[in-house]
């Protein structure tokens, strides 16, 4: 899967499932402060990543992920590792 396709899929579930606006999805956006992803939302991110990409995320994997770009990079690395 190409990186662009992965980012498109991530953006799709952030808009569709998490009801974020497309113009909010800039790479530098903070997941917590700007996109208002809270601790319960991380639980749902685990579910939707498994549905979309087929791998399981551990809660602690999110510790170093601060921005949307960090999140894209994490998903891309996991998809490529698989």
């Amino acid at each position, binding site marked *: 899967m190409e990186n662009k396709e992965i980012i498109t899929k991530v953006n799709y579930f952030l808009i569709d*499932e*998490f*009801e974020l606006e497309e113009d909010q999805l800039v790479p530098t956006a903070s997941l917590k402060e700007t996109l208002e992803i*809270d601790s*319960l*939302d991380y*639980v*749902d991110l*685990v*579910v939707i990543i*498994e549905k979309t990409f087929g791998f*399981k995320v*551990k*809660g602690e994997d999110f510790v170093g992920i601060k921005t949307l770009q960090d999140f894209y990079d994490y998903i891309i690395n996991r998809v490529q590792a698989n």
Partner: protein
Amino acid sequence: MNRVVITGMGIYSTIGKNIEEVNNSLYTGKSGIGFEQLRKDLGFRSGLTGIIERPDLKGELKRRQRVGMAEESEYAYVATIEALKQARIEEDFLDKNDVGILYGNDSTAKSVVESYDILKEKKDTALVGSGAIFQSMNSTITMNLSIIFRLKGINLTVSAACASGSHSIGLGYHLIKSGLQDIIICGGGQEINYHSMGSFDGLNAFSVREDQPQKASRPFDRDRDGLVPSGGAATVILESYESAIKRGAKIIAEVIGYGFSSNGDHISVPNVVGPAKSLEMALKDAQLKAAQIDYINAHATATPVGDLNEAQSISKVFGPKTPYVSSTKSMTGHEMWMGGASEIIYSVLMMQNSYVAPNINFENPDEHSAKLNIATETIKNHNIDIFLSNSFGFGGTNSSLIVKKIK
């Protein structure tokens, strides 16, 4: 002691999605019952059920507010929005005052079943999602609504089987009467899915008149063959008379009596003595004689034994001359955890509009229902100053409420 009044009502039911629609259905005797093939495919004895559309709250509530809501929480939200609007209680008032919530609910099976289905398939609790726990607790309605409306008062779910909604109003009445709270959102909610009803269907308590769904719920009729499960939600805003006057709220009616009892007998079969005790306690609390009641909204669910015993309880307390009696479950089906609250609303609507809603499908009495003055069709231009509403549940829990017109 404070007087306790009703200042708002809201409903989402199988016979209407708001007060106006429900009032029209009650007046015309419209049934909300239908047939669901999926129940038969799953091995249900009866495919009969109340039919209701799930409200779409996307766009009205944020995702975080919605994901923890079970089906009955959604119904309760819609009903409560209508009730708060009628009571003229807005967000700013809720932020500045200790408004409470006491809501009846006694199951939330669908979310529990769905969570377990995920576990069976995925073998990982991390894949159940964040909303499941908040959907799968009996207090799903009170926990969600108290957050959405930012409530600061009492926050409690009342689980008392088919008397849950009625007890929630009775307990709210006492908290306000004693001065502990000024305003409480009371009510009852009931999920309507097959997930929650399979075990009940297994007791052979449901009607199997599947070829005539709208004639299946036949409370007090000689040929009744069981209840029809149904649901939705009903909200009643209870308030102290003083608070209502101070706010300039329109007072709809006054709650003047609450009676309760436990049969201490059989887990599913009701008796005569327990309900009669509840009725007598409500009359005593209201300082009324039985003859002063203008209308009885019966619990009657259309089960052979339940209706038989309730008819005897009413006769025991009211003697040979009863006021008009009807069971609105003939139209709605059995709204269970919701019923005690919705039936207060149905009766208030009759009181406000001077009619008695019909006990539809009552064609032939049995030995005991023949002694009751059952409204077989809409009784028009009938003044109701005071009514009594009964709710009885599994485990022998009984609740009776008496409500009076404000003049």
